């Protein structure tokens, strides 16, 4: 359960990151308010994930935090790549 929440928080962080780079990832520009929310989400979500991860144990928590970062990043990248792939 804990791991699922950590993954969810990373997903949120990557989603905010992608929306903050509209040109690179081909998304519509955010409003100034939306931009502020995305910046906050990009900082707060990983911080919350780290706090949640290290609660049961420091070293295991940090390893889990980095591991979930990598896997969720990979999933987001694959989703974005398939989204922009032209139909065959």
């Amino acid at each position, binding site marked *: 359960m804990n791991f699922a929440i950590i993954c969810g928080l990373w997903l949120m962080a990557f989603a905010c990151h992608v929306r903050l780079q509209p040109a690179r990832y081909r998304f519509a520009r955010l409003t100034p308010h939306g931009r502020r929310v995305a910046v906050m989400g990009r900082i707060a979500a990983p911080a919350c994930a780290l706090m949640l991860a290290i609660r049961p144990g420091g070293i295991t928590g940090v390893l889990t935090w980095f591991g979930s970062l*990598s896997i969720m990043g990979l999933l987001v990248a694959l989703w974005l790549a398939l989204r922009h792939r032209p139909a065959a």
Partner: protein
Amino acid sequence: MRETLRTRLGWLHAWAGFLAGLIATCIFMTGTLSVFDAEMTRWMQPENQVPANAPLTGTALDAAAALIHEQQVRGSSVFLTLPSPRSPTLDVLHYDGQKFVGTLFDPRSGVPITVRATMGGTFFFSFHYTLLAGTTGTRLVDILGIALLVTIVSGIVIHLRALVPDIVMLRLSTARLRGWLDAHLLVGVLFLPFTIMIIYTGTVVNANLILPATPLTHLFAPEKPEMPAAGPTVTTAAPPPLPALAPLLATARRSLHGREIGFILFSPDRLSLYASDASGPFLTRDHADFSLPDGHLLGTTTTPGPIAHTMQAMHGLHYARFAPLGLRWLYFLSGLCATGTIASGLVLFIMKRRRASGHRIGFRIGEGLTITTITGLPISILVFLWCNHLLPATMTGRDRLETSLFFGAWILCAGHAALHSTSTSMNTAWRPQLAMTALLGGGLPVLDVVVCPHAVRSLWAIHAGMDGLGVLAAIMALYARRQLQDDGT
């Protein structure tokens, strides 16, 4: 940043990465498999069907103690490994010069279990850190670790400007070279923390082999002639019988602050009970000593101090023996992706130079070695697993034959890649080897179910995991083969 620095670092990244990467791919691939070395051994010894968490009884400990005493009388040096969730048998082992061998006992009844001779998962573990070449191999692995760290740092500097903004960038629709570069960067950047941690800790744990901690005064002092050892060398007296081990285990657990006991070493006048490697992220050799033959506690030995703790953390992080199953899978996936980063780097190196240097013999050798590494090694690993199930269980020297067939298959793959190095397109070498990987990987579950159906039923999780990895290898090979077909080169 000045462009000249980027160019120079690009050259360093490419050449250091390619030369170190050829062997590093093998080290990473076998290291990734070593995360589940105990489980692989269980898959490769289907006769051992003891369930995880089987209770350890005094009867089993007495049976093991009787065998140990018998071996001691015969002059062999043995040790006892206690059951753990990953390896639930009670093992009386000794080192035969290559691996640990011995007798496995059922922890519930103390009945010896007859299993087939195989190196099991230990083969991949040994290959990972020694390249099966002893201390020389370990030194080479350590030097390659340093080369990889240099490659990573140069790669970070080259990619620094786009490191964070492009962290989830993957363009499958663009040119093939761009797609491969994106994949290399994506996996490389996302798994950078794991990759740096695993290479750094791996280098540090064996750093004494390349940087011995010898004070300079000792290095420059004239060597003294060696004195013959004065201590007793041969004892003719029979070793004393062992005391009951169960009460000693309970005392040792209390002395080691509740940590489980991993193994017991026996010497003529004492026995030492060591804390399990799985008891925490700090991999220690803390132990409790008991005198023989009465079994009185002599004391506990721990290694305090910040330097010792740092080294224990380095060992613990690298070996991950403390990791629960979920974290172990994270290690496995991260290892797989780190292997993918290095392998994609090798492919990129070849792709970038094909147009300008494709006709050169050096390029052909480089591509042949790349194919031998990226597709040849998985084929050899799968051949190793197939041979384990197909060779008769009671055959003499079957463990050596398994290893020989592993290398035989790898040499055949190298020969196949070399034979095709004269043709204009290397797809003729890639595609048959990818098809072979798919065939062997996809056939692994079928073989497992046909050859050892009882083990599949009783230990379904281990068999599903191993067979699933075979299927995963097959899917990846088929996908890569299809991409090559679409490429049309």
